[in-house]
Structures are given as structure tokens and as C-alpha cells.
């Protein structure tokens, strides 16, 4: 126990925490991207998936608290290490160049990470909490229901959500920052845990970059294609059904003319 405590107090031990929590978040980010792509399988598939997640009940809360724990560990160790790192170089160089041979991604892990954290907060308010004020459509996302099953119509929610161009743009830019973070982080975690050999390093570091590009494309194709008109007919159809159902009086009066 004492040995473990000593380990976690060292810079190397905090990197283990950062790498393990980062690995968990990385796996989540990859799974989440694949889940999102079900948008392109149509409303039944996406809404069935969303309903399945909702119906997990307590298990869903275990997963949510687990993710929250990972985020706390990750940001906590990042902040502690950053303070130590800054203290180690009290007087900076005057040559005005970035540290030699350090990639942009590796130099922006903290700043990029903070942007991602802010995005995650917005994203949760937008689609999980369904806070009406942040979706800029005037529609209450929590009360969209699938006309066929009566379950939450996540498909319509996503289509409405991303039809606001600046919301979509914000998502794409933020996911860009996440993928920049991961283009470095996803290979750094192998190094931090000592899971590296001379022969495997090129595979790990190039694999991390390739997977980050795939993540970026997989995430941004959702807002991107909605902006380009994907699913517009579904929303038009939905609005027709809704106006028929909610304002029969108006409809009949129109018909009378």
C-alpha cells in the first residue's frame, strides 16, 4: 500500500493515472463514434439503440459515474503534472521558438484538453439533459417522440440539433480538437505505461494518428451531412403528422375554405 501511494505521488505514477484514464476515455470516444454512425441506418436503428441505452437503468448510471471518475482522474492528474512541469522551468527561453521537434499536438495537450472539457459540458446539456435554451431551435428536445414506438425520438433530435449551422460548426471544431489531442495521447499512453518496443513504436504512433483521423471523420460526418440536407424529408413528414395531430381545428378550418 505504502509503495502504491508513493508511486501515485511520483511524476511517473501520475502519468500512469493519466494514461489509464485517457485509455478509458479513448475507448469510450471510439465506441461513441461508432454508435453515432447508426444515424445513417435510419430512425428505427438509432432510436432502438438509444432506447436500449435508456433502458439499462442502474447500469447506465454505473457507466456514467465510471466515465465521470475517469474524467476527474484524467483532468486531476493533468493539472497536477502541469503545475509541476511549469514550476520546473521558471525562466523561459528567449529564442521564441517552440520546443525543438515537439509536435503541435504534444504542445497543446492542456489547452486542447480544456476546450474538449467545455465541449463535453455543452454536449451533455444539449442532447443528454435536453436543456432547451442551448439548442437554439426553440424546440423542446426532451418531448420529441417517435410516432411509431412512442419512445424518445433521438433521430429527430439529432436532425433538429444539427440543422443550426453554428451548433454543427462548433461540434466539428471541438471534435477536431479532441482528435488533435488523441493523435498524440493515443500513442503517448502506450509510452507512459511502458508498453512500447523499438519495433512496435512506429505502428503505435502512426496507428494513433490514423485512428484520430478516422474518429474525426466519423464524428463530423454526422453534423456535416445534416447540414447538407440529410434527413430533411423525415422532419418534414414529422411536422406534417404533428400539425395534423395537435391542431385539428385549424386543419379543418383550412379545409373548409
Amino acid at each position, binding site marked *: 500500500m*505504502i509503495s502504491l501511494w508513493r*508511486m501515485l505521488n511520483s511524476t511517473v505514477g501520475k502519468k500512469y493515472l493519466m494514461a489509464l484514464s485517457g485509455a478509458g476515455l479513448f475507448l469510450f470516444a471510439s465506441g461513441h463514434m461508432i454508435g453515432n454512425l447508426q444515424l445513417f441506418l435510419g430512425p428505427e436503428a438509432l432510436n432502438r439503440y438509444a432506447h436500449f441505452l435508456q433502458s439499462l437503468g442502474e447500469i447506465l448510471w454505473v457507466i456514467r459515474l465510471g466515465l465521470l471518475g475517469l474524467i476527474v482522474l484524467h483532468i486531476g492528474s493533468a493539472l497536477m503534472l502541469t503545475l509541476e512541469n511549469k*514550476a520546473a522551468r521558471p525562466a523561459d527561453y528567449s529564442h*521564441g521558438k517552440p*520546443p525543438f*521537434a515537439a509536435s503541435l499536438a*504534444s504542445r497543446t495537450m492542456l489547452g486542447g484538453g480544456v476546450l474538449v472539457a467545455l465541449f463535453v459540458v455543452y454536449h451533455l446539456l444539449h442532447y443528454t439533459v435536453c436543456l432547451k435554451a442551448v439548442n437554439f431551435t426553440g424546440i423542446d428536445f426532451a418531448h420529441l417522440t417517435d410516432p411509431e414506438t412512442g419512445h424518445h425520438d433521438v433521430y429527430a433530435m439529432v436532425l433538429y440539433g444539427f440543422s443550426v449551422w453554428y451548433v454543427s460548426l462548433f461540434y466539428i471544431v471541438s471534435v477536431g480538437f479532441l482528435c488533435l489531442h488523441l493523435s498524440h495521447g493515443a500513442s503517448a499512453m502506450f509510452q507512459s505505461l511502458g508498453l512500447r518496443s*523499438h519495433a512496435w513504436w512506429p505502428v503505435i504512433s502512426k496507428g494513433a494518428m490514423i485512428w484520430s483521423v478516422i474518429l474525426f471523420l466519423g464524428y463530423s460526418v454526422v453534423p456535416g451531412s445534416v447540414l447538407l440536407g440529410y434527413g430533411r424529408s423525415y422532419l418534414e413528414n414529422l411536422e406534417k403528422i404533428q400539425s395534423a395531430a395537435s391542431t385539428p381545428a385549424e386543419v379543418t378550418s383550412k379545409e373548409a375554405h
Partner: protein
Amino acid sequence: MKVKLKVWRQKDTRSAGEFRLYETPDLNVNMSFLEMLDVVNEQLTLKGEEPIAFDHDCREGICGTCSLVINGKPHGPHRGVATCQTYMRSFQDGDIIIVEPWRARPFPVVKDLVVTRQALDKIMQAGGYISVRTGAAPDANSIPISKENADLAMDAAACIGCGACVAACKNASAMLFTAAKVSQLGLLPQGQPERYRRVKRMVEAMDEAGFGACTVTGSCEAVCPKNISLDFIARLNRDYLVASLKGGAKHG
């Protein structure tokens, strides 16, 4: 050729430093960078000014005493080359060259471009040794060592302890130095008895001295005059994890 130098001048550890601009006299392009500084210092001495203090000893790339951050890169423009092996032919006539000391909290400036690197000695004292009975030299090849490990240990042992890795790292981390020293002994049979105690003590000494953590930016490897590989940092991370999980006072 002639160049202009923007050099960090600092009277002592406590004083604040500043950059001063110097113009060199006509130089031979085949002078080393340190010989160029010698020429400038001779001029300063003749003028009655204080010469620029800089560290150097062997001037053949093996002792690790020379330092200097030259135009933003520790040890100057080349890969795998120490400052003392850098020549003026690598610069252009009329260049302005910025020369700064290593910058890290554990490396306080002693004077001008000279810093103290005692913090690295502290890391060595914490575990960079093996305990053996002294006596006559053992027979060659009396302990079998695989070729692969012998080569790797030799690569790690190439570290001259100059501290360029610390100087280059955005976190002023000494991980590459410490990893090389941990590995050069940990890879050999003679280093096994103290292997896990060593890595714990050396990491603790490194943290205690105030060096930063590794962000895997790779700056250290890119400036190392001996091309020490980041692979050794992964090896340190692995050994430290095993050491911590093993726990126990006898490894402490």
C-alpha cells in the same frame, strides 16, 4: 566570416541576467563554436571587459560538460552532435546567433552560460551504481550476456549526462537521462540485484530535484548528442510499475 552573437550575461545565481549583443571579428569557418567564443573572449579581455563564461572540458564530444542553447536548440543545429563538435561552417556569414544557458529550476545559472548540473549527480547517487566486491578484474565473458542486451546497455551507457534533454523539454524533465542510467544497469546481470530499488530511488530523486514529467514530445531524443532513444523511457516506466507493484521494504 563574421557573425553577431546575442548572449545571455548573468553575474551570478542571484543577479538578474540580460542579453548582450557582440560582433565577432573575422572567423575561420572551420573553427568550432567554442573556439569562436574563445576568440570573442580574447577580444573582451583585451578591452578590459568580463569574458563570457561557458562550460567545456574535453571538446571532443565525450565528457558532457559543454552546454549552450544555440538558436533554440540545445547543442546547436546538428543531430547527435555536442556543442563542442559544432563548427562555424554550419552558420552563414552575418547570422545573428542567440546563445542561452540550459533553463530549468534544478539547473541554476552559476554565471553567464554556466549552470550547475548537480541535480543529475543526485539522481546518480540515489541508485546509479551496482554493489560488488572489488578486487581483480573478472575474466572476460565469465558472465554470459545476450548480444541484444549488451548492445542496448551500450546504447544507454552512451549518455554523457550533459542535460540537453532537460534543456530541450518543455517540462524540463530529466526522464531521458534517468531512463538511460536506469537501463544501462538494469539490462545487465550485474544490475539485477538492485534493479527495482534503483528505479524507485532514481525516480524519487528526480522528482525531488524538481524536474518535470514526461509528455512524450520527443524533444529530448531529438537534441541528445548521443541519440539516446525514447524506448528507454518506456523501459523506465515499465520497471517503475513493476517495482511499485512488488512493493515491500526490501525493495524500498
